[in-house]
């Protein structure tokens, strides 16, 4: 056998393993820490972060695609509210404001 011929497998991602627990393979408490004491609030925080990210999106195509995704995936009421949120939170010169008129 030669060093160059060694077949090396991929290591699974190691997420949250507590260094104190050698030989153990998971850390459920890490996932729970990420989710926080109020997982719904954490999800909401993530959504707000994404909305901020969206404010920096310059591509009309991408925004169009996103709005189409939403139209197909959520209820009419939810869609209306999402459009209203973007309307209020997207900067004045954001491509969303040009698209929204067409998307009604």
């Amino acid at each position: 056998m030669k060093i160059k011929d060694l077949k090396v497998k991929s290591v699974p991602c190691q997420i949250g393993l507590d260094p104190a627990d050698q030989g153990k393979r998971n850390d459920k408490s890490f996932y729970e820490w990420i989710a926080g004491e109020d997982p719904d609030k954490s999800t909401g925080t993530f959504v707000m972060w994404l909305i901020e990210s969206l404010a920096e999106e310059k591509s009309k195509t991408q925004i169009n695609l996103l709005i189409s995704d939403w139209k197909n995936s959520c209820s009419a009421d939810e869609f209306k509210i999402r459009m209203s949120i973007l309307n209020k939170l997207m900067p004045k010169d954001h491509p969303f404001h040009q698209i929204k008129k067409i998307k009604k």
Partner: protein
Amino acid sequence: MKMQEKVTGQEVVVPQIHKPKTSFEFTNVVEAIKSGEKKNEDLELFDKIESLLSPEQRQPMIDYMVQQERCTNKFAEHFFSEKKFRKRVMSLNENFLKHGEKMLRLEEAEIWIDLMEAGSDDIGPLLDTTDPTKQFKQLKPLDKKTMQQNRLFDLKNRIPDILGVEEEQFVHSVFKQNFHEVGLPYSKKNEDWLALFNDPERMDAFLSLDSINELYEQLTKGQQLDALARRVQLFWKTNETGQRIPAMHVQNMAENPDTKYVSEIGFVIEKEPAKENDPKGGRRLLKDLLVIVDKEARGSSDGANFLLGNLKLIKKYQLEEAEFVANIKIGSYVWARISDVDIPTMAEKLPGKTKTELGPKPWNEKEIRGMVFRDMILPTFEKNLVKAIHSVISSIHNPEKKKEMQTNLVENLMNNQYSKLKERALAGDLTMEELVDLGKGLNVCKFDEEGDIVQADSPNATHQGHLGKAAIMGVTWTARLKLDTRSLFGVVDKLTKGSGFIPFIKRVNQKLGLALSL
């Protein structure tokens, strides 16, 4: 020197005027670039006259870059032919140096330029964002020596996971030989390694051995041992299909001074080769994620901020996709809800005889999906199903209830529903989410803190879940996520299935909710 005029006819001493250099040493030019020495004479001269050099004059310097700095010919020629490109290489070196990550070879600049867009040429945010001491205040940075030792220890501990039995034995024989070379005994124990680590001279000698360098490169798929003290390592990686691709390994560590536990944040960014007919070129991929945060260092409610803080790397470095190899108990179910199986990546790892079965490429997507499920997912899934069902039924003592559960779990879920799912899986028609949803709503399986299935009546049973969740644990599979904003909104939709995300926004901030008239 002062001007001295002699009264007699003797020689006048003339002040020494500084004469500019008329020749430069290219080796000095290269070292100056790596050391960020803008005022270096050789470099300044080189920069001035470079465009006047003939191909014959340039060739030895190109050869030097290829042989000593391990650049490709293409890169070296470009370095000489375009001043703007040269400036980019120099700025990169300055940037790395400024952040304490001096490049060892110009090869690293080439790899970075191959890997990243010009707008990302700054490792500052990368180092800051992944620095555990910035995020967890009680942690302290590790000194270089400790970091090197931890890295080697990590690698050594990983060996049983990444090598087969024969290969592992071979590697130990290599270690034994090399320990012997530096005058130390070797019996695979941690004590042997600690003896090496505690002896700086022997450690240096060990790290210079050819076979140790070769072994490190092989086990890490391309990383170089002389960069062991660096937090950012750029290397050429040989991927699954034997192609050479640019890659960067980031590994940041910090220690809890009270407990000595080492927290780590690390990952690899690589650029996949472009697929046929894909004008965009290869994807910039995040993978091999390693996130260990000392329990004591974690605040109770800053996990989400920690995650979001790291997600900003996506935009900074234009990361397009992320690959996760899940072999984690609870995590596996979460991933199955967010992402489907990455079939092409897993297909490369199918057993040889299955690949023979599939015949020559290009492979049919549905067919390989069927094979991936058949050979790589379902075997362990089924074993776990049996174990989970047994753990529930055997803990029920009331005969009527036992019978009821048996009917439910065995006859209905296992023999009926799972059979149908399996048929679809083998036909290449099943998603991961559909598989793990087996038995959803019936949370009869019990797990302990580690996410291991336990008897339903066990005192260690701290969590519960349905059959599919229990069965997917421990199955090694590769998931892939797109990281653009639109795709991440898709992830949220999956996580909040049915509810939409408005209710969650309201939870974040009452005022915000009111302001948005929600």
